[in-house]
């Protein structure tokens, strides 16, 4: 039980209390000022209680927004129930969302186990398959055992018919064995029903049939627990409603009772899962061993959750029956709903059974076409049998089924033997745990020793790097940098190369650092060729260049890398203009390319990158050449061209979408551009030589791409401008001209202009995010920002428009008023009011308008109706038995309402009683008759007085009870939070221990925040 569940019930009850208090207030508010004052005090106290409850929830480690979400969710549940939906439907609809919210808060279905069952979480983390099982069990809520049993009973005839339809002989049938629905069939059918909704197909694919029994048992526990949880919610709700008239201390008892029911249900769920997992582990280990898969830990202890102390026990003895009845009804409804689900999945289950029987018949050779009486089924079985993989799986499942069944039988026998022999299995398991733990520690020690040795080696490298750095000189610096890189400390390399490596390291999520550490184990492999380091570099973006630079081709060595670094300065001079053109990234690229050029000095090489229009925009469609460094340079130059084109298109408001065909590359030391896009670098083949003027080459390539029509969405005039003459001058002209056009559009179509500009801005941001390798969450935030800015732009445009037309509209409204068309004037005024309001507030304002209209109608017609009603009464006020009957009926009706605390009736009681007595005086046959009427009036007045007093006393009693509850709940919340913290601590410790066991041979994390006490026993 967690405090969050209490919070749910508390919040539900608060909502109910506030609603009823509002009714009380309405009922008695008009009667006396004293009652109103008391009710007001009640509401104030409720508010304080709500704050205390929220604090209790926060104290229970649930974030405020999670509680808020839960409150909304619970509100949905309450609204659903109040609107007459079937409770089970509401629970099934809202339960999943509640689970999601609890999951966000870290206390979801899996998280709940984490919070409460420290043992479960360890196994669940180590075996996500089991977590999937538990989730499926709790989510689906089907009762596997019951379903199996019921299907075998209710569908026996259908099963037999199916067996007969296979056309088997009696002997064949006997050979096939009993045709019935096994748990496996049920499982497969159930899975077909729920797998899509739960999205656990992938997880399930790794489950073997030996998991079926565990799932079976877990489902049984899940069904009962699920029903219990539901009944605790629904039962509490109904129970409170049932006992509401006599609520007082009973309220406290009911709330705590409901909370304890929930605790009980959760405890049952956890222990059911623990039991199933224990059984699963025991029977699965031999199978896993046979399949050469690692074994699992075993022996989880049951969880015992404390119940809430209930000082109000017995306070609602009479109402207790009603409450228990409500709980029982809800429980039955939940069980019935789950059975209904089982019924719905029955067809799926039956189909699974058919498939299995068919398959088994095929495996046994019983469906040989030659001997077939049911050709269709046998053909299907034959096809299934022809699939070797499927056959293997079927054999495996079958064997596993059989082994599992035998093991379970053995396990059951063993339990009985234990019981007869007086053996304590828990003690044996504890001993087994101790042995297992010792063995694990022994095995793990090897991994620890290995990790420590690696750490020592890493330190030695770091120390060596430091010494080399102190030696000085380019060679020393290079060696020092490399060694630092090997230790994962790229920043220590220094210079732009170091910065680049560090940048790439960060962008690759630390992969470089990890790899560097890994390579410390095998230096020979590192220096030997293009290993994982290269791949990581490639993943980092500019990895191709860096990889080539550092490692070169196969067989390169440290010398080539050092040479690349030495050429850095030359490269900076050569590509200074490129660096300026491309901004900060260009600086980095400049340094990188510098390195490339440095490496390129060693031999004459050529390369060319051709730019084309791909599906996602501009791209390097081909990269040719015989030199890695030239290829890199060409690729970078092409990238510069593409970036420039993108920037130009953005500035001019166009898009990159037209045809492009241009190549830019290097031949020896010269930059070459092939306007045909043929990738030529020879001038004899049409390439244009720009010498070492990379900027000129890039400019030319840009102009050529523009001339090809790369930028679309521009006006013809802008297109003409940028396709003529010097690209820089023409661009300047185009920008000025486009600026004028933009200004005109901004004035004439401000909203469209703003939205277009926003779209471009967001597109650029999206590209930047893509480059930065932004996460999905960051991309979602970016999209949300776009939507918000779009709303702002629309709102601004609307406000501007309103301010323009507002003055004229005001004059029109005034004219309408002067013309006496008040209705039209009011409508126009409201229209303006709504238009000037934020869209989200308009529905509320419209509701206010409607209420104002309704109030006006009431104010107008209410007095008229009252007057007519009084006149009607006058018409019937004459003497006579008929009128006396009417007066008496009216009086008794009013008296009955007054006795129930109806404020209106209480106010009318005196008047109607007077009329009644007057009529009685007129019509009584004797004084006794009149005195009888008088006695009736006296009794009614007495009841009315009591009812009015009772309303006030009732409200005060509620306040007192709630205050007592609040104090108790606060203390319970504190206590619960403390217990949960301890459970968390134990769970985390167990998880770390189990994690280490499962990662046998890997390093052991011993961070200071979560120390692992390896000698401590499992709780």
């Amino acid at each position, binding site marked *: 039980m967690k405090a969050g569940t209490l919070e749910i019930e508390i919040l539900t009850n608060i909502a109910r209390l506030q609603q009823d208090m509002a009714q009380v207030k309405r009922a008695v508010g008009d009667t006396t000022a004293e009652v109103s004052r008391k009710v007001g005090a009640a509401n104030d106290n409720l508010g304080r209680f709500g704050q205390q409850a929220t604090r209790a929830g926060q104290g229970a480690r649930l974030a405020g927004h999670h509680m808020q979400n839960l409150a909304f969710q619970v509100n949905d549940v309450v609204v659903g129930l109040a609107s007459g939906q079937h409770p089970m439907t509401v629970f099934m609809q809202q339960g999943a969302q509640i689970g999601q919210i609890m999951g966000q808060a870290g206390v979801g279905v899996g998280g709940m186990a984490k919070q409460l069952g420290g043992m479960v979480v360890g196994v669940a983390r180590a075996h996500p398959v089991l977590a999937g099982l538990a989730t499926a069990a709790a989510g689906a809520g089907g009762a596997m055992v019951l379903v199996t049993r019921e299907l075998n009973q209710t569908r026996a005839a259908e099963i037999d018919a199916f067996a007969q339809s296979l056309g088997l002989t009696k002997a064949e049938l006997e050979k096939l064995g009993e045709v019935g629905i096994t748990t496996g069939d049920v499982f497969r059918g159930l899975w077909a029903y729920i797998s899509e909704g739960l999205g656990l197909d992938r997880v399930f694919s790794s489950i073997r049939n030996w998991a079926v029994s565990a799932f079976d048992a877990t489902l049984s526990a899940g069904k009962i627990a699920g029903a219990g949880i539901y009944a605790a919610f629904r039962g509490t709700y109904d129970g409170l409603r049932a006992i509401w008239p006599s609520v007082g201390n009973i309220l406290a008892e009911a709330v705590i009772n409901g909370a304890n029911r929930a605790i009980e249900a959760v405890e049952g769920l956890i222990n059911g899962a623990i039991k199933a997992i224990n059984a699963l582990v025991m029977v699965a280990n031999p199978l896993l061993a046979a399949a050469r898969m690692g074994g699992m830990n075993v022996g989880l202890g049951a969880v015992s959750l404390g119940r809430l102390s209930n000082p109000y026990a017995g306070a609602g003895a009479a109402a207790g029956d009603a409450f228990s009845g409500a709980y029982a009804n809800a429980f039955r409804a939940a069980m019935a709903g789950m059975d209904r689900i089982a019924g719905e999945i029955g067809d799926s289950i039956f189909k699974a059974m058919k498939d299995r029987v068919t398959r088994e018949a095929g495996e046994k050779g019983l469906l040989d076409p030659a001997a077939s009486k049911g050709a269709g089924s046998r053909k299907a079985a034959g096809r299934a049998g022809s699939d070797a993989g499927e056959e293997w799986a079927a054999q495996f499942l079958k064997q596993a089924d059989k082994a599992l069944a035998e093991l379970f039988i053995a396990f059951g026998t063993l339990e009985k033997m234990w019981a007869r022999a007086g053996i304590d299995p828990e003690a044996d398991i504890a001993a087994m745990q101790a042995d297992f733990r010792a063995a694990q520690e022994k095995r793990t020690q090897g991994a620890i020793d290995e990790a420590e040795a690696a750490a020592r080696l890493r330190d030695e490298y770091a120390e060596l790097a430091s010494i080399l750095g102190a030696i000085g000189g380019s060679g020393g610096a290079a060696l020092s940098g490399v060694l630092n890189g090997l230790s994962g400390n790229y920043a220590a390399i220094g210079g732009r190369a170091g910065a680049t490596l560090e940048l790439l390291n960060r962008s690759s999520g630390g992969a470089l650092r990890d790899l560097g550490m890994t390579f410390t184990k095998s230096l020979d492999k590192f220096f030997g060729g293009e290993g994982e380091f290269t791949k990581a570099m490639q993943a980092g973006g500019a990895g191709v260049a860096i990889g080539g630079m550092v490692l070169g081709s196969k067989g390169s060595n440290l010398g080539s890398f050092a040479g690349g670094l030495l050429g850095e300065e030359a490269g900076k001079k050569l590509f200074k203009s490129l660096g300026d053109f491309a901004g900060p990234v260009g600086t980095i690229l400049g340094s990188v390319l510098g390195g490339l050029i440095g490496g390129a000095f060693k031999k004459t090489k050529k390369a060319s990158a051709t730019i084309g229009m791909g599906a996602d925009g501009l791209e390097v469609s081909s990269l040719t050449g015989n030199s890695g460094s030239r290829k890199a340079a060409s690729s970078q130059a092409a990238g510069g061209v593409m970036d420039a084109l993108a920037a130009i298109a953005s500035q001019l408001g166009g898009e990159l979408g037209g045809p492009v065909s241009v190549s830019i590359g290097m031949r020896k030391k010269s930059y070459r551009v092939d306007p045909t896009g043929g990738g030529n670098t020879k001038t004899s083949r049409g390439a244009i030589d720009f010498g070492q003027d990379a900027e000129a080459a890039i400019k030319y390539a840009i102009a050529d791409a523009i001339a090809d029509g790369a930028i679309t969405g521009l006006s013809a005039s802008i297109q003409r401008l940028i396709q003529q003459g010097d690209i820089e001058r023409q661009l300047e002209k185009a920008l000025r001209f486009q600026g004028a056009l933009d200004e005109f559009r901004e004035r004439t179509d401000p909203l469209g202009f703003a939205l277009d500009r926003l779209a471009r801005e967001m597109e650029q941001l999206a590209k930047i995010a893509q480059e930065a390798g932004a996460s999905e969450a960051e991309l979602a935030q970016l999209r949300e920002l776009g939507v918000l800015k779009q709303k702002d732009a629309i709102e601004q445009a609307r406000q501007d428009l309103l301010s323009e037309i507002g003055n004229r509209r005001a004059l029109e409204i005034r004219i309408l008023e002067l013309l006496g068309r008040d209705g039209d004037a009011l409508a126009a005024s409201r229209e303006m009011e709504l238009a000037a309001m934020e869209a989200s507030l308009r529905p509320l304002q419209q509701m206010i308008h409607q209420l104002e209209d309704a109030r006006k109608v009431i104010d107008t017609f209410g007095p008229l109706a009252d007057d007519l009603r009084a006149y009607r009464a006058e018409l019937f006020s004459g*003497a006579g038995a008929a009128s006396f009957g009417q007066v008496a009926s009216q009086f008794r009706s009013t008296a009955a309402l007054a006795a129930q605390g109806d404020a209106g009736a209480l106010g009318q009681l005196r008047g109607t009683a007077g009329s009644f007595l007057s009529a009685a005086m007129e019509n009584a046959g004797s004084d006794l008759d009149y005195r*009888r009427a008088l006695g009736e009036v006296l009794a009614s007045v007495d009841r009315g007085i009591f009812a009015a007093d009772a309303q006030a006393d009732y409200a005060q009693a509620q306040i007192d009870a709630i205050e007592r509850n609040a104090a108790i709940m606060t203390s319970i919340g504190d206590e619960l939070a403390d217990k949960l913290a301890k459970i968390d601590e134990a769970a985390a410790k167990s998880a770390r221990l189990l994690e280490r066991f499962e990662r046998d041979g890997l390093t052991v994390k011993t961070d200071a925040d979560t120390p692992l006490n390896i000698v401590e026993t499992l709780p």
Partner: protein
Amino acid sequence: MRLIRREEVTDATLVSSNVPESTAGLSNWLDVTTYALGDLVLRIDPSGFGRGYLVYRSLQAGNLNHNPDSSPDWWLELSRVYEPWNAAVTYSAGDVVMSPADHRLYESVQGANANKALSLPEWWLDIGPTNRWRMFDQSNTSQTGNGASIAVAVQVSGRADSVALLNIVGSEVRIEAETALDGVIFDETFNLVSDSGITNWYEYFFEDVARRGDFLVTNIPLNADPEIRVTLNEPSGAAQIGTLVIGQSRDLGITVHPARIGIQDFSRKVVDDFGNFTIVQRNYAKRADFRVVVEEGKIDALSALLASYRATPVIWVGVDQYASSWIYGFYRDFQFDLANPKETYLMLELEGLT
């Protein structure tokens, strides 16, 4: 003209009465019990009114397994009684209880009426005296009823020479007077068949036999402190008495013409503009205007006497022979008319109780 001053009957002076007052001391009839002659049993009133019981008296000895509801030869229904109020009982609306303290009946006005004092009008409605005591209240309309007979004995403190029985149903009445010193001083039985209006043989034979609704005896010897016993018999049903007045009479004078007697009807009769009547029948009271010749010398005594009985109900007997001139009530006004030295009249305006 005489008046009979009413002797107050209280618990102390009511020596005996054969009219049951409540269920106290009585048991429900059992079919396994053999009842003796005169034994009283209870049966729940089949009408269900007010949680009441009917009291039956065994008419024969050896009365075994004869259901009183259906055995008139064995049981005589006497009257309806109610349980004494009990604080521990929760009464429903309409339930009737009896108060031994004031001999009155109370009807529950509300349901869930538990431990609410009978003095709380919002819970209990006083519906009048118990059956035994109705003949002693100040209403001529409310009657004491009892199967076959009503027999009461009243101890008079002082003197009493008159017994008046008003609004009665019975065939004969026996009046007895006895003192401790003198023994029986008066014992007469009177047939209540009325001969009023029977003035010829035809009427004697063919008119329905009528009984007297009022009866008066004024000649009981004035022995001190007599115990007066009145027994009204009605063999064919329940004997009923509206008012029993025992007291000493005082002769005022001789009633002379003109005199007026009649009734005042309290019924409500309203007619609308179309001649449709709305009629609510209610009680009536006798009215009379008498002119009584008195001796001038008694003026002071009579004046003082009448003043002392202002707003006090007494029996006014205009003419002994005419029951219609008997009024149980009080005077509205009286005047002495000293017409001449030899003629003095007492002018009385009387109004009776309902």
